[in-house]
């Protein structure tokens, strides 16, 4: 076992930022928990923007150096210790998620702000802490270099996400939260058994070390299968999506935004880490096609069911089910038939862009839906008439989010779709192209339904229940614009996603 003793990496300069990305949220959670009351919100409103700055620094560092940033925690190198690593993939995801967090925080200030002098209240206290916890968990998922650390991160994410679902305490959200919790726990335990088997075979769970030693033997493959299905359950990939629609549709708007935009991407990211980084040569054709088939089924089912929803938030939730499907199309598309390896360029880049553009667009759409709900007191699609006149900015944000989901240029959705379609052409798998294009058409159908209702005049004069603060609308609009303009990264730093990949070949992606 000479390989295991080969120490792969050492702390790089600026590696300390990786620690900060995890320590800041953790400290924020703990401090807010003690101080309580208004402090929770203040701490979150200070830390989340600094998280964005931090993520940007990491991104710039990775971009300029062209290498991974590494930090060896406790100065104990893997396999005994734990390493944190930031490659292009994680840096890009971190920055976009940080943008989503900042926007959500601004948006949530209206619903979860505590007025001076009032006593600590349940929902705000819980919300701000959980928001910071999700932020920390996501950072850990992006940076963690050890599969068990990633398990802890997954649990952190689950425990932060579940209470968000039932923050308003209604019976149906409680039930949704319970379903979510039990299903997510099932997912984590399957992941955990996989890590046990991997440790048994290699005595390390470090991603880089594992990738050097990995062998196609039964224990490893069984472990990979169990972990993957566990992560699928947490990502709500069709047909394991039972928990997603009620949970995402029932949660408060700010929470829905985080759950739909951010949380499901965590487990997806781990699927990518597992198959692209740990065992790029293990998936094989049949496995990759299975991933793709599930993704395709998700796109078709999610979109068609979304089309038939009568409530806006449920429609958006089903749209998330569909959009998650796109993410899994990258596996068959990234598989190089000749070498049997998953390639870390092309399709993967498209998938990550899809993930981040969906994150921004979907968060914007859930925020918009929340504002509509607040203004009308309901979100029945058939009765949205007149809302476009009452809340033009909100509907505009919703529409822009839709443009990105449909995949019209210059949105990130378009760029992702283009890259994925290119990959279908390059690998000759036209059937995925059909699914990708059909998905876009379905999306435009339900966007048309919603928008046509929204711009239609109202029967009776519309009376808004509450005045919607401008900054909430602005937060939604800012995210929607981010998503819309994300396609412009094609003009510049799109290569960053491939930085730090072992097989990165900087050609081919446009």
């Amino acid at each position, binding site marked *: 076992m000479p390989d295991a003793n080969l120490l792969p990496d050492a702390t790089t300069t600026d590696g300390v930022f990786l620690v900060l990305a995890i320590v800041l949220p953790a400290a924020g959670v703990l401090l807010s928990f003690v101080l309580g009351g208004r402090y929770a919100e203040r701490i979150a409103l200070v830390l989340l923007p600094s998280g964005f700055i931090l993520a940007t620094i990491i991104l710039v560092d990775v971009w300029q150096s062209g290498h991974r940033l590494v930090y060896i925690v406790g100065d104990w190198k893997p396999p005994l210790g734990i390493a944190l690593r930031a490659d292009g993939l994680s840096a890009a995801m971190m920055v976009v998620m940080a943008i989503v967090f900042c926007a959500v925080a601004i948006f949530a200030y209206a619903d979860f702000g505590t007025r001076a002098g009032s006593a600590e209240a349940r929902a705000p206290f819980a919300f701000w802490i959980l928001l910071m916890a999700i932020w920390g968990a996501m950072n850990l998922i992006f940076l963690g270099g050890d599969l068990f650390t990633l398990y802890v991160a997954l649990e952190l994410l689950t425990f932060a996400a579940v209470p968000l679902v039932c923050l308003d305490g209604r019976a149906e959200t409680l039930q949704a939260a319970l*379903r979510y919790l039990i*299903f997510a726990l*099932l997912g984590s335990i*399957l992941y955990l058994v996989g890590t046990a088997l991997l440790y048994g075979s290699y005595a390390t769970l470090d991603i880089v070390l594992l990738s050097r030693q990995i062998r*196609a033997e*039964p224990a490893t*493959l*069984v472990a*990979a*299968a*169990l972990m*993957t*299905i566990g992560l*699928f359950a947490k990502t709500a990939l*069709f*047909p*394991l999506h*039972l928990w997603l*629609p009620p949970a995402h549709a029932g949660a408060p708007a700010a929470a829905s935004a985080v759950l739909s935009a951010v949380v499901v991407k965590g487990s997806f990211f781990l699927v990518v880490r597992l198959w692209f980084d740990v065992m790029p040569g*293990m*998936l*094989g*054709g*049949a*496995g990759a096609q*299975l991933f793709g088939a*599930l993704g395709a089924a998700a796109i*078709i*089912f999610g979109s*068609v*069911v979304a*089309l*038939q929803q009568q409530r806006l938030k449920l429609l958006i939730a089903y749209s998330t089910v569909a959009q998650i499907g796109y993410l899994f199309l990258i596996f068959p598309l990234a598989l190089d038939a000749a070498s*049997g390896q998953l390639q870390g360029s092309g399709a993967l880049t498209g998938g990550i862009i899809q993930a981040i553009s969906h994150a921004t667009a979907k968060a914007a759409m859930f925020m918009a839906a929340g504002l509509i709900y607040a203004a009308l007191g309901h979100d029945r699609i058939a009765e949205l008439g007149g809302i476009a006149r009452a809340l033009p900015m909100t509907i505009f944000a919703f529409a822009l989010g839709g443009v990105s989901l*449909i995949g*019209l*240029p*210059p949105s990130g959705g*378009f760029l992702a*779709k*283009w890259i994925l*379609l*290119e990959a*279908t*052409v*390059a690998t000759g798998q036209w059937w995925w*192209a059909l699914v990708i*294009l*059909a998905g*876009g*058409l379905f999306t*435009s159908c339900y966007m*048309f339904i919603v928008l*046509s209702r929204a*711009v*239609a005049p109202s029967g009776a004069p519309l009376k808004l229940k509450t005045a919607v603060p401008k900054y909430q609308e602005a937060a939604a609009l800012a995210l929607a614009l981010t998503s819309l303009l994300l396609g412009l990264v*094609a*003009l*510049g730093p799109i290569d960053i996603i491939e930085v730090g990949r072992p097989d990165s070949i900087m050609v081919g992606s*446009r």
Partner: protein
Amino acid sequence: MIGQTTLLASAFVVPFGMLLLCLWPQILNRMPSLLAFAPIPALAAVLLVATDSSFAIGSARFHLTFAMDRPGAMLLGVSALLWIAAGAYASQYLQNRPNHGRFVVCWLMTLTGCVGVFLAADMVGFYFLLALLTLGACGLVIYHETPSAWRAGAVYIGLALLAEAFLLMAFVLLASEIPGNSLLIRDAAAALPTSPQRDLILALLIAGFGMKAGLVPFHFWMPLAYSAAPTPAAAVLSGAVVKASILGMIRFLPLGTALPDWGTAIAAAGLFAALYGVVIGITQRSPRLVLAYSSVSQMGFIIAIIGMGMLTGDGRAALAAAFYAAHHVLVKGALFLSVGVIAATGSRRLWPMLLPAAIIAVGLGGLPLTGGALAKFVADELLGDSTASTIATLSAIGTTLLMLQFLRHLASTASQDPQATANAGLVWPWLATAAVSLVVPWTLYLTVPRGTLPDPLSAAVLWKALWPVLLGGALAMALWRWWRSMPQIPKGDIIVALDGGVRAAVTWGKALQRTDSVLRQWPAATVSLLILTVALGAAVLAR
């Protein structure tokens, strides 16, 4: 050179900037009166910028390129004229009507997209601007918010996005064929004839552009959309916007290479559409619908020209098609505007108003000395003396018939009040368009390379153009006699079949939803989790 680039850019940057300015409500309120000025930079660019000049924005590896080529310049120029006139018409039209804001925003979106498409030289830019155009045009179609407008809008955007899906796939395939990183349309068209995927790409391109150009059987959106849209919008949609797809065909299809199979197919489809539009159009009773079906027919004819070009590998087809299309831009625009003008005119003032409409309408059928005759003459060169030429003559007879039918219905829509006169703000833009439609084809004719074409003013040519018109007129007399026994065909004809399809789709949708709700039950979901685990395990173990 910098000045030229700036001018070229300003053609679509100015309308786009005006679109952005609409974010400020004060400016938005004043915008209707400024609509006519938005296309002026485009016109200036056509007149002043040298052909084949281009510029790019973006990084070295990925950029959007814009360029002016001959067909593009021709279509852009006449389109800009129509946009200016229709914009002036719209500013009057919008007075005392609700929802200025939405109209203006959609108008500017469509304009930006329309101008941009004519200038876009790479596939991504082309696709983007086409999408922008579609969204804006859809907004214009549903402006009146009546149920039929909503239906028209839904059909329009549905079909347009379907078409764009085909196009996107074609573009991606083309991009993979082009050696290197280029995304230029020029390179794509050059790579197409030798591509191993040639037939697939051609099928996708023709399906996509055909849908957007209203090629039968995808024509049904045209009657719906043009009858629902506000008058100035119908004018630009039927005149300028629909030509984007013609330009797409001209640019993407390899017209310089003889592809007899494809050429025959396209030409046949186009000529069939040319006749089909006439036949169905005759049965319609509203002037807008007749015009819409005439558009179906005319677009079919233009596509047929392109097809004939492909058949023989005659590169001149591009210019001929663009020339014919340019003529149609102005005539169809002017005719749609006339519908609005006549509706506001009483019987006392009717004839002076009807006469210009009559001239350009019959000109569409090829009345000698009009632009229509000239356009037909240029096209005839390509069609030769084959069956296609016969069909073209038939179509000319039919078009004359159809246009007379249009005039008859048009006259019947005149205002009930005999004293009513249309507002000058409506009349002048219309008259200007009509006049331009007569003059510009002759101007443009001078740009078509001379020498190969015989003189359009010789007696033989004049007679060849005249007799179909006369025959059409005679047929119209006969038709009016038996008018009552004509069948009534609902607008959009085959869309009735589409309704059946929608019902089937709904049934399928419900079935999927039921499946979904079964799968979301706890035992079903967990059992599928186990199945997936076993399946994935088997898949990776078996490799």
